[in-house]
C-alpha cells in the first residue's frame, strides 16, 4: 500500500514531535512545520495528502493556512487541531472546507480512524473521477472470453504477470482485447483495490494530451477555468493503462519517460512537483520493433515499457472462440435491447467462422449487436449479418482450400434454395459428391 504523506503544522515542538512519532510508527510519511508560513513554503515544493493544522499559532493562523491550501489544492484533506476552548473556530473551519477537527489531546483511536477514513475517501475520489469520465464511453467487453489454446496461454500469462509490479507492453491488432487484458492484469494485481485508469493516446489530440496526463492549474491556459487532475494523479495507487502508446508525440514520450523514471511530474502551469505511484501497462497495435527502428517510438521508452510483453491473438487465429463470443454478445445485446433473440443459426455461425474479421472481436461484437437490432425473428440468420454478402467475405490467402470450398458450396446451396441437383450442376460435381461434401463439412439447411 502506498504511504500517505502528512504535514503537521503546529508551533509547539512537543506536539509536533509526539504526533509525528505516532504517525510514523503507523507507517505514514510525516513532515512537520513550525508555523503557517513554513507550511506554505513546504507546500510550494511538495504535495501532501493530509494536513494536520493547529488553529492557534503565532503569525499565520490555522484558518489562514486552511484558506490558502484550499485555494491551491482543494483535494488536500485539512484536519484542524484545537484546544477545548476554541471549538467554535474549529466549526467555522469545517464550514470553510476543513475535513474534520480533533480536540487536543485526542484519543489514539480517533486519530487512527480519521486518517484511515481520509485515505479511503481520497482513493475513492480518484476512482470516482475516473469512473465518471469512463461512464460516457461504452464498455466494449465485459470480460475476456476464449477456450482456444491461444487464449488459454494469454490467461496463464495474465495469472503470472498480474501479481508482479513490472511494466507490461501488450501488442496486437485493433479490437483484439488489449484493454481487457490490461484490466485483467490490474484485477490480478495487489493494486486491484486502486483505480484502473485508461488513456487512449490515439484518441486524444496532441495539444490536449499534456493536460490530460499531467493535469493543469487554474489559469494555465485560456480554457483552464479550474485546476484539474491529470490521469497520472487519478491512477495513484492503481494502474495506468496507456493504449495506443505508439501514437503519442516524441515530446510527450520524453515527458512520459521522465515520469516513469522519477514518479514526479508537474501539472501544466504548475510549479509544485506531484508524485504518483502506479503500475503502467501500455498497448499498441503497431509492430513495436519496427516503430523503434522507424524512430516513431523512443528506444529508451520502449525498453522502459517492455519489461514483460505479450501479443493478443487476432480473432482469425482463434476461430474456435467465435461461437462462444457470438453467444456472449447475443445474450448481452438481447438483454440490453429487450428483444427476445434466443439463438444464432448454424448457418450464421458457419458464415462467421469463414469470415476473416479484420476488426477482430470488436467487429464481431458490432455485427452481433446490429443483427439483434435489425433481426425480425427469434434467431439470427445469415441475412441478418450483411457483412457476409459475397463481396465482403474475404477470400484471403490465409484461408485453407477446404475453408474456401466449404464456404463456396454453402453459398451455392443457399442461392439454389438447397436444391441438390441444381447446386451440383453449378458446382460441376455429381449429386453423390455434393452429398458427401455436405456431410463432411456438416452443412445443414436452415430451418
Amino acid at each position, binding site marked *: *500500500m502506498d504511504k500517505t504523506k502528512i504535514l503537521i503544522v503546529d508551533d509547539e515542538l*512537543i*506536539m509536533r*514531535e*509526539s*504526533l509525528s*512519532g*505516532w504517525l*510514523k*510508527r*503507523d*507507517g505514514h510519511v510525516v513532515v512537520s512545520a513550525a508555523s503557517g508560513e513554513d507550511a506554505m513554503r513546504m507546500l510550494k515544493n511538495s504535495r501532501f495528502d493530509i494536513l494536520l493544522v493547529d488553529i492557534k499559532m503565532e503569525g499565520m493562523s490555522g484558518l489562514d493556512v486552511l484558506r490558502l491550501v484550499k485555494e491551491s489544492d482543494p483535494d488536500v484533506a485539512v484536519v484542524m487541531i484545537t484546544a477545548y476552548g476554541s471549538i467554535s473556530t474549529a466549526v467555522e473551519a469545517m464550514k470553510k472546507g476543513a475535513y474534520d477537527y480533533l480536540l*487536543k*489531546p*485526542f*484519543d*489514539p*483511536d480517533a*486519530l*487512527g*480512524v480519521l486518517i484511515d477514513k481520509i485515505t479511503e475517501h481520497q482513493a475513492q475520489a480518484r476512482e470516482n473521477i475516473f469512473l465518471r469520465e469512463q461512464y460516457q464511453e461504452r464498455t466494449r467487453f465485459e470480460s475476456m472470453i476464449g477456450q482456444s489454446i491461444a487464449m488459454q496461454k494469454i490467461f496463464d500469462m495474465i495469472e503470472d504477470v498480474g501479481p508482479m509490479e513490472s511494466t507490461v507492453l501488450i501488442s496486437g491488432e485493433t479490437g483484439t482485447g488489449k484493454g481487457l487484458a490490461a484490466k485483467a492484469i490490474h484485477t490480478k494485481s495487489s493494486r486491484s483495490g486502486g483505480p484502473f485508469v485508461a488513456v487512449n493516446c490515439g484518441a486524444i489530440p496532441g495539444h490536449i494530451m499534456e493536460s490530460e496526463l499531467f493535469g493543469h492549474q487554474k489559469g494555465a491556459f485560456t480554457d483552464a477555468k479550474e485546476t484539474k487532475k491529470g490521469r497520472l494523479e487519478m491512477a495513484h495507487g492503481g494502474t495506468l493503462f496507456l493504449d495506443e502508446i505508439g501514437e503519442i508525440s516524441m515530446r510527450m514520450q520524453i515527458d512520459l519517460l521522465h515520469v516513469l523514471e522519477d514518479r514526479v511530474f508537474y501539472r501544466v502551469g504548475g510549479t509544485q512537483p506531484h508524485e504518483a505511484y502506479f503500475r503502467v501497462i501500455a498497448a499498441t497495435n503497431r509492430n513495436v520493433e519496427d516503430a523503434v527502428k522507424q524512430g516513431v517510438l523512443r528506444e529508451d521508452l520502449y525498453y522502459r515499457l517492455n519489461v514483460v510483453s505479450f501479443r493478443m491473438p487476432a480473432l482469425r487465429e482463434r476461430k474456435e472462440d467465435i461461437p462462444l463470443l457470438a453467444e456472449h454478445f447475443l445474450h448481452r445485446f438481447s438483454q440490453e435491447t429487450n428483444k427476445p433473440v434466443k439463438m444464432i443459426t448454424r448457418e450464421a455461425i458457419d458464415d462467421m467462422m469463414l469470415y476473416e474479421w479484420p476488426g477482430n472481436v470488436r467487429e464481431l461484437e458490432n455485427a452481433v449487436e446490429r443483427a439483434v437490432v435489425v433481426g425480425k425473428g427469434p434467431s439470427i440468420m445469415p441475412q441478418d449479418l450483411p457483412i457476409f454478402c459475397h463481396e465482403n467475405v474475404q477470400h484471403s490467402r490465409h484461408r485453407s482450400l477446404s475453408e474456401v470450398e466449404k464456404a463456396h458450396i454453402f453459398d451455392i446451396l443457399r442461392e439454389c434454395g438447397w436444391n441438390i441437383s441444381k447446386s451440383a450442376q453449378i458446382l460441376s460435381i455429381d449429386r453423390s459428391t455434393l452429398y458427401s461434401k455436405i456431410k463432411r463439412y456438416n452443412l445443414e439447411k436452415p430451418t
Partner: protein
Amino acid sequence: MPGNRNVKNVQEHIIISPIGHLDPHLIRQVVQEVHRITGYDALAASVLQDVDFAFEPSRDQHCSTPILEKLADAAPPGAVKILAICSVDLFIPILTFVYGEAQLGGKACIISTHRLSEGLGTARSDIFIRRVVKEAIHELGHTFNLRHCKDHNCCMHYCRTIKDVDRKTHHLCRYCKVLLEDEMKSMSKI
C-alpha cells in the same frame, strides 16, 4: 528465521526492564518471547528505578517520551534494545493515552500494563500475560524499524481497542518477519 538467529557477539542482548513491582512470571514470559522472536539473548534487569520524573499532575499520567530518552541513555554496553514495562498510565502530549511508545528504529521502548487488564478483574490471567507479551513485541518491533501492519493477526497490527489486542497473535506476519530480518542484518553490518 529470526528465532534461529545465531548471535555471534554474545555481549549483544535485549534488556527487559521492569519498573516498579511487576509479577516475575510475567517478566519471564516476555523474556522468552523476545528471545524467540528476535534471536537475541533477553535479560531481565532493572535499569530505571522509577518514572516519577515523567509524572504530569494535570493529567494524572506519565509522559512516555522522556522515559524513553532516559532508558536509551541508561542502556548498558551490549544492550541493542531496551524494553521497559511499567504499571502506570502512559500518554504522549497529543494523545489521551498510549499502551506503549517506542523510538522508531531507536534503542528504547516502553509498555504499560495499566490498561491491559481491562475486563479481566484483578486476578492474574493468561489473557493478561498474552496482552502484555503482544504489546511488548509490538513496541520492540518499532525499535527494529517495523511500522504498523495491516494484517489483523500480526503482532505489529495497531490495536484501537483491547479487543483488537486479544484478536491479534503474538507472532509477526511473514512480511514483518522479513523486514525484521532485514533490519537485523543491516544492524550487524554497522
